């Protein structure tokens, strides 16, 4: 199981990060956010909220998330 790493993003001319389409996180589509059943948004757990994903990375989360009895994410 590989460790997830975040590739450095070099800002483009306008100050926005340069986008590499092949590296956009499939889970959050690059937004860095996901939503639960109730529509509460939270940081994407697949890319750690970066919105990018380097090929070869394991999508497996590094650690268990903190959730309560009702599966409210506490992070």
């Amino acid at each position, binding site marked *: *199981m590989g460790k997830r790493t975040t590739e450095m993003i070099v800002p483009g001319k306008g100050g926005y990060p340069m986008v590499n389409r092949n590296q956009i996180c*499939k*889970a*959050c*589509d690059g*937004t*860095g*956010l*996901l*939503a*639960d*059943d*109730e*529509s*509460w*948004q*939270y*940081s*994407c*757990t*697949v890319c750690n*909220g970066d*919105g990018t994903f380097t090929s070869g990375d*394991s*999508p*497996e*989360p590094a*650690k*268990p*998330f903190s*959730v*309560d*009895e*009702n*599966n*409210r*994410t*506490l*992070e």
Partner: protein
Amino acid sequence: MVLNVSQKLIKEHLVSGEMISGNEIGLKIDQTLTQDATGTMVMLELEAMNLERAKTEASAQYVDHNIIQEDSKNPDDHLFLQSATRKFGLYFSRPGNGVSHPVHMQRLAKPGKTLLGSDSHTCANGCMGMLAMGAGGIDVAMAIAGEPFYVKMPKIWGIKLTGKLRDWVSAKDVIFELLRRHDVKGGIGKIIEYYGPGLKGLNAMDRHVIANMGAELGATGTVFPSDEEIKQFLKSQNREEDWVELVADEGADYDLLEEINLSEIEPLIAKPSSPGNVVPVREIAGEPIYQSYVGSSANPGYRDFAVTAEIVKGRKIADGISFDINPTSRQMLTDLVSDGHIASLLSAGARLHQAGCNGCIGMGQAPATGRNSLRTTPRNFPGRSGTREDSVFLCSPETAAASALTGKITDPRTLGFDYPKVKEPEHPTVDDTMLDEPVPLEKAREIKLVKGPNIASIPKMDSLPDELEIPVLLKMGDNISTDEILAGGARVLPYRSNLPEISKFTFEIVDDSYYERAMKIQKEGHAIVGGYNYGQGSSREHAALAPRFLGLRVALAKDFARIHWQNLVNFGVLPLTFKHEAEYELLEQGDVIQLSNLITQLKQGKELTVTVKGKAKEIKVNHSMSERQIEIMLKGGLISWVRERQK
């Protein structure tokens, strides 16, 4: 027997189990509440259950979350929900009528009743002397179909309120005080019950504020007594006949005891990024802000908006501040307009939004990156505002208004003028124009569900076969989350009312060939293997339902995250754990596993035998389902189980 209010509510609704903390109890549910984000699935589940009519005393569907309508998907959902409420005999609260929790409190809540809602802040209606709890969509669908709700008997945590809130301090600061003391897990497995002389100074909506954010402590519910104050509230809503007194018996006991002296509370604020990160406002006063946001079910009262308006009346907000006003119900908005408060807010520089959840749930009004946003909303974990790198502080309306005036985080006591005393309207507006009543049964029978192009019925799911011979389509490691099973991202979420379509995204992050491989043997079925903590993470029923639709019959793991395990059972996927964890290594992707005499095996005990075909391997596995859950599993899941009972 001497009982507190929570015990009375539970005893009155107990259908199974004993009232011993930690034991599973079954509770009769009188009322339900669904919001539109969770409601579309609930209505599709009712359709799949073949339900003729809701069996609860009152069930209401609110449209308060997805009301921006940036394309046709939201309005398609709204029309579907309206048609479903008409077909199944539910109330329908139209978009713009307001946030579910305050509207339910105003129009439908009844002391002494139970309320189950597919929204984690359903507990807010505990302010009415109700046992109100948040749950998953399928739990609420079951309750609408007349089935009990099963929960572990909580501990009852008595909180004695004494003293009286000082000027510039309000109900929000009371719940912050509890969060300051106990943090976001302090209420897990407990019902918080408030009592004592301090209650006199808290009106019904103040109690709503406190009960609402019991969810932030992780509590099963929050309960207030139904006293003279609740009687007055119901009278103001022309519903005095719905009032019954419900107070703790003299000398009633609690599992845990605590006291809050209201006179000692000062203005408090929860810093980024947790509702439990509470400090006095004065400690961080002076920090610049970008936004001040008033509204949400965590400060829904007329008072909350009126006091905000009185603080800024005749003044101007600081330059560059976005001062966002989000009314919580149309009734209240009408009164705020006629009493001149909305004019005061607008003159001061406020932006007025429609009645709904709006920015609280990240639907609009997202703050700028990294800029401080002060909000009267209940939750500030990262991203909840809709901005990835947000910096959200939670506070009272008094602190939000004071800070809007100065442009900095401000302890309202330092404003230098007298605390405005707000009077509730003597005859508040009562208007059910936008709350459609249930349609009579005869008429309801003729109603057809209105399904837009993106809404599809849940296909019929078969019962569990006695013999299974199925391939392992995926073998995964530890901590596989619901996000990896089926992510709730922008590409996927639009299909959540369309099971066949949303299923195409299942496990795509782990292995994007899974969908194709599963579909080839959808009828025969397949298994998956996971490590520890399988199915952890946020609540996502689709993470069980979609693989099931694709033919998943058995999930074999070292252990399961609790809610996902429950969802697997609910949707008819057999969750098994290794008796000897080392045997996880014996299984490989592509292996074919056999389970024989499954029905007998399940009924006879907790241990089953799995044979790996062609490898002469036998693996001992366990299940931990109750008798009730085995029955559900054999029928192929809750939907089929209820469907059969409707006959």
